[in-house]
């Protein structure tokens, strides 16, 4: 846990710097993917910067609002931090709206954004480790991973490594058209399992024993499986294969 990077008299907050780095790398990755894979869609080509801006601003705002919602407390938005799933859940209807409810275009955008999302999220998790949030349960070993003065499971770093592995899987071994489905399934499973090892206040969604992130993980996995199975067997319009 190293919340500040000291340069002279100034303490730079490490979490904020890593979030900034994640945004820069995310944008450059998205731009590169767009340049490589988007040959036909001129709307996304023309407005990619605007789409990115709106997603960042609205995504971060709702990431904070959702964390308050999970804690049933709206007295001060942002007091519980931010949650990745809050931004992701809002990004889906937001981008459908931005792309004028064109499902083909939306799937293309999702596939273009998946590698950027994975890399940005991984860097953000390193930021979480530096800031000392999103920590795991107490353990006796691994003294190098000390958070809040205790030895804890470094769930942030485990998640960051897993995100990098998913990044390599979806960019190297998965077809472009199916990237987002693999992302939803793989990240959903990993996040669902990692939640059992988290020890910070997870909040509550439906008054059940599962954490809000686990509920959303299950929904994402089921959604991805539904899209894969439904459009494979029951429809000639194959949205699981992306834009033609």
């Amino acid at each position, binding site marked *: 846990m190293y919340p500040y990077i000291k340069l002279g008299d*100034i303490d730079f907050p490490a979490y904020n710097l890593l979030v*900034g780095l994640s945004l*820069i790398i995310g944008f450059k990755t998205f731009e590169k993917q767009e340049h490589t894979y988007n040959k036909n869609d001129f709307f996304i080509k023309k407005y990619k*910067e605007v789409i990115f801006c709106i997603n960042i601003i609205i995504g971060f705002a709702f990431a904070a609002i959702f964390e308050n919602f999970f804690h049933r407390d709206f007295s001060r938005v942002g007091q519980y931090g931010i949650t990745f799933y809050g931004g992701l859940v809002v990004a889906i209807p937001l981008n459908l709206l931005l792309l004028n409810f064109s499902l083909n275009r939306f799937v293309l955008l999702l596939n273009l954004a998946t590698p950027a999302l994975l890399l940005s999220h991984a860097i953000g998790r390193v930021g979480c480790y530096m800031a000392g949030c999103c920590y795991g349960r107490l353990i006796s070993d691994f003294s190098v991973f000390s958070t809040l003065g205790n030895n804890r499971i470094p769930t942030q770093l485990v998640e960051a490594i897993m995100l990098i592995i998913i990044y390599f899987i979806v960019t190297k071994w998965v077809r472009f058209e199916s990237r987002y489905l693999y992302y939803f399934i793989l990240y959903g499973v990993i996040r669902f399992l990692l939640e059992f090892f988290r020890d910070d206040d997870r909040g509550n969604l439906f008054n059940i024993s599962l954490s809000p992130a686990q509920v959303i993980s299950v929904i994402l996995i089921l959604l991805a499986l539904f899209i894969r199975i439904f459009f494979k067997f029951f429809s000639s319009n194959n949205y699981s294969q992306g834009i033609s």
Partner: protein
Amino acid sequence: MKQKGTSEVPLIMGIIGTVLNIPAAMCGAACGAAISAIGEAANSSSASSIGNYIVAISVISGLSGLVGGILGKSEPNTAGILMIIATVFAGLETLGGGGLLSLIVCIFYLIGAIYCFVQKKVDV
């Protein structure tokens, strides 16, 4: 013919400036309110209003800097204007008690704004 920028500097300066602007704003709001509360004529409402003022200008400067940074290549002139707005508001934040971090944010935005205008441009 439309012109497009080639430099990454506005993007880096805009985003790093914005992420550093958040702690600077919180510090500025707290410091500004504290300074006001210590003053003889100040009461709790004026202290609170100074805090709100610093938060409001930091939100404006942060959003302008972020949007300006991201648009730095595709719309260099618009991005430059947005980053100048961000620089001015970050400067006001510094004067309102934002401290050294706020001054650094202001310098980052200013460098980004200059690069928006002077970067090498290509016709598209």
